[in-house]
C-alpha cells in the first residue's frame, strides 16, 4: 500500500467502524441510541448521517438503515460517541431499538454533504418535522457560536411525535412548536408560523429536515422571499456511499441543467431552490439523459 493511498483514505470523511451501544432511551415515540464509534465524532458536521447495519450476522436484511447524526461527543467513551434518533416502524428499525447496552453496532459514518453555515451572523430559522429535528440541534450550536440568531421550529402530527422540545428551549434563541392536531403549540403545519418568524427577525436562511412536502414548502417560502434555504432530504438508499444510484432526485445544477443526483453523496443537504420538488419521484423530460418519449420497455 502506498503512502499516497493512506493519505487519501485518512482524509476521506466516512469510517466503517464496529461500535458499542452505550444507552438506548425513549423520547416520545422515538428512541435515542448512543453508541461509541471511534473517530466518527471528530469528523461529523451537522447534517451528516450514519448508515447502520441491522439484523446481526448473518441476516436476511442486507441493506443498511440511514439516520441523521443527532449529537456527537468527541470526549465521550471509547474514542467518541454518536447519537441517533430512531423511529421504529419497520423490521430493521425495530431490531435496532431492541439492542442492549454493550451490544456491538456496525456503522458507516459520517456520510453525505452536511449543512453549510453562513459567513455572517445572520438570523436563521431551523425547521424540523418529526424526527427530522435530530440534526438541527448540533446545527443550532454551530450557528449560535457564530453569532447567528436561531429560531427553532419543531412540527409533528401530534405531541408524542415531536422530538427535542426540552432541548430546543435551551439551545435555540427561541423555540416554536406546531402540531397538526393542536396537542402542543400552535395547531397546524410548521408553515403556519414561518412567515411571522421570518418577518419578526429578518430571517436570512431557513434550514429544514423532515418530510418532503414540508421541505418543498420551506423552499418555496424562501424562494418567494429571496432568501436561502437548505433542506436535508430523505430518499431510500441501498448503499449510502454513492455506488448504487438508488437514492436520486432531480436537482438543477449551477449550469442550469437538471440531473438525477445521488442524495447520499451530493446530499442529503441541498439548496432548496435547486431541488425540482414537484418532480421528485419522476424523471423530468428536460433532465440530462431523460428517455425520449416512447412506450416503456421492460427491465
Amino acid at each position, binding site marked *: 500500500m502506498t503512502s499516497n493511498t493512506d493519505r487519501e*483514505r485518512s482524509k476521506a470523511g466516512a469510517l466503517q467502524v464496529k461500535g458499542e451501544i452505550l444507552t438506548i432511551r425513549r423520547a416520545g415515540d422515538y428512541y435515542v441510541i448512543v453508541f461509541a464509534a471511534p473517530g466518527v465524532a471528530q469528523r461529523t458536521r451537522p447534517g451528516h448521517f450514519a448508515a447502520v447495519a441491522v439484523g446481526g450476522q448473518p441476516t436476511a436484511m442486507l441493506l443498511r438503515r440511514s439516520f441523521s447524526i443527532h449529537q456527537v461527543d468527541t470526549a465521550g467513551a471509547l474514542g467518541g460517541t454518536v447519537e441517533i434518533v430512531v423511529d421504529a416502524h419497520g423490521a430493521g428499525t425495530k431490531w435496532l431499538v431492541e439492542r442492549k447496552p454493550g451490544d456491538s453496532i456496525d456503522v458507516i459514518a459520517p456520510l453525505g454533504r452536511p449543512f453549510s453555515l453562513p459567513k455572517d451572523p445572520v438570523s436563521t430559522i431551523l425547521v424540523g418535522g418529526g424526527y427530522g429535528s435530530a440534526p438541527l440541534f448540533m446545527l443550532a450550536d454551530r450557528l449560535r457560536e457564530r453569532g447567528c440568531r436561531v429560531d427553532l421550529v419543531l412540527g409533528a402530527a401530534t405531541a408524542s411525535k415531536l422530538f427535542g422540545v426540552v432541548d430546543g428551549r435551551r439551545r435555540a434563541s427561541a423555540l416554536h412548536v406546531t402540531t397538526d392536531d393542536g396537542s402542543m403549540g400552535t395547531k397546524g403545519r410548521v408553515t403556519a408560523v414561518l412567515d411571522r418568524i421570518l418577518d419578526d427577525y429578518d430571517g436570512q436562511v431557513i434550514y429544514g429536515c423532515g418530510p418532503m412536502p414540508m421541505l418543498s414548502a420551506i423552499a418555496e417560502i424562501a424562494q418567494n422571499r429571496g432568501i436561502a434555504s437548505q433542506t436535508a432530504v430523505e430518499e*431510500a438508499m441501498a448503499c*449510502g456511499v454513492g455506488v*448504487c444510484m438508488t437514492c436520486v432526485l432531480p436537482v438543477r445544477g449551477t449550469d442550469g441543467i437538471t440531473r438525477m443526483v445521488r442524495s447520499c453523496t451530493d446530499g442529503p443537504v441541498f439548496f432548496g431552490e435547486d431541488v425540482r420538488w414537484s418532480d421528485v419521484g419522476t*424523471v423530468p423530460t428536460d433532465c440530462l439523459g431523460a428517455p425520449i418519449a416512447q412506450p416503456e420497455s421492460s427491465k
Partner: protein
Amino acid sequence: MSAPIDMRANLAGAQLPSPILTASGCAAAGRELDRFFDITEIGAVVTKSIMLEPRSGRATPRMAETPAGMLNSIGLQGPGVEDFIAKDLTWLRDRGARTVVSIAGGSVNEFGELAARLRHEEGISAIEVNISCPNVANRGQVFACDPMSASSVIHAVRRNTSTLTPIFAKLSPDVTDIADIAGACVAAGADGLSMINTTLGMVIDTTTLRPALAGITGGLSGPAIRPMAVRCVWQVRQALPDIPILGMGGIATGLDALQFLLAGANAVSVGTAVFNDPSAPIRIQRELAAALADRGFESVADAISYAHREQE
C-alpha cells in the same frame, strides 16, 4: 504455516493478482470504495455499464429490500462514454487499478460504437458486455434472452475490439437454457462469460397497494439468488469446459466465492454485498485465501471446477 496461496487469476488472458472483482453497477467506477479499501489490491474494478450518451435512468423508488436480497430498477443511469473516459477511466488508470469496462446499448450498433470508442483507450483489462438490456429494435426484448440477438451484439463488439482485449458476455439467468446462450456468445467471439446478471422480480407494496418500484419490475440480487447463480456456472462449465467464467450472484463471504470457483468460475464479482459492507471485496479475498489454505489448495487455479471431478 504453509506457503501463501497463489491467488492469481487469468480471465482469458487478463492477468489479475486476485480472483475477486467488483460487480458492474455495485461499485460505480471504484472511487467511492477506494475510501474503504485499496482498490488496487483486488483483481479488478468492473465499472457500471456505460452507454454512448448520458442516461437519467428510471424514476424512484428504484429499490426494494427483499429477503436476503434486493430488487433494483436503476435503468442504467450514467454520464455517457465520453464523460466516462475523461473522468472515471482516467481516474482508475491513474490510481493503478485494473479495470473491466462494462458496456450496454439499446441496439447492436450502439454496442459496436462503444467498443470502437474504447478500442484505443489504455488501462482496460477486459470489456464486459451487458447484454441484459432491452433491444429497442425488437420490442424491448432483452438481448441476453435470445441466442441470435446475443450473438449479434457479441459479434459487433468483437469486430470493434482489439484481439488483445478479452470480451466477456454477461448472461441473464432468465432463460430456459443458459448453456445455449453461452454457446451462441462464444461462437460469436466472446472470450469469456460473466454470470449471472439479476433475475427479474417484483414486490407489491401492501400499504399503497401498488408495485413498490416505479419501474414496476426490477432485478433481484444478493444471497437470495446465489444457488441459482452457482447452478448457472455449473451448467455452463459442463457445456463449455474451457471457457473462462466470471461468476457472481450473492457472494458475501469467502466460502461463497469458493463455491463459485468449485463450480467452474475462474474469478468472481462481488455486487450487492458491497452495500452491506463496502470493504466486502477485500474481506472476501482474505477469507477466500484462508478457505483455500484450510482445504489444502495451493492456488486459486487448483480449485477451479474442482467440484466437477470424477468420484474418487
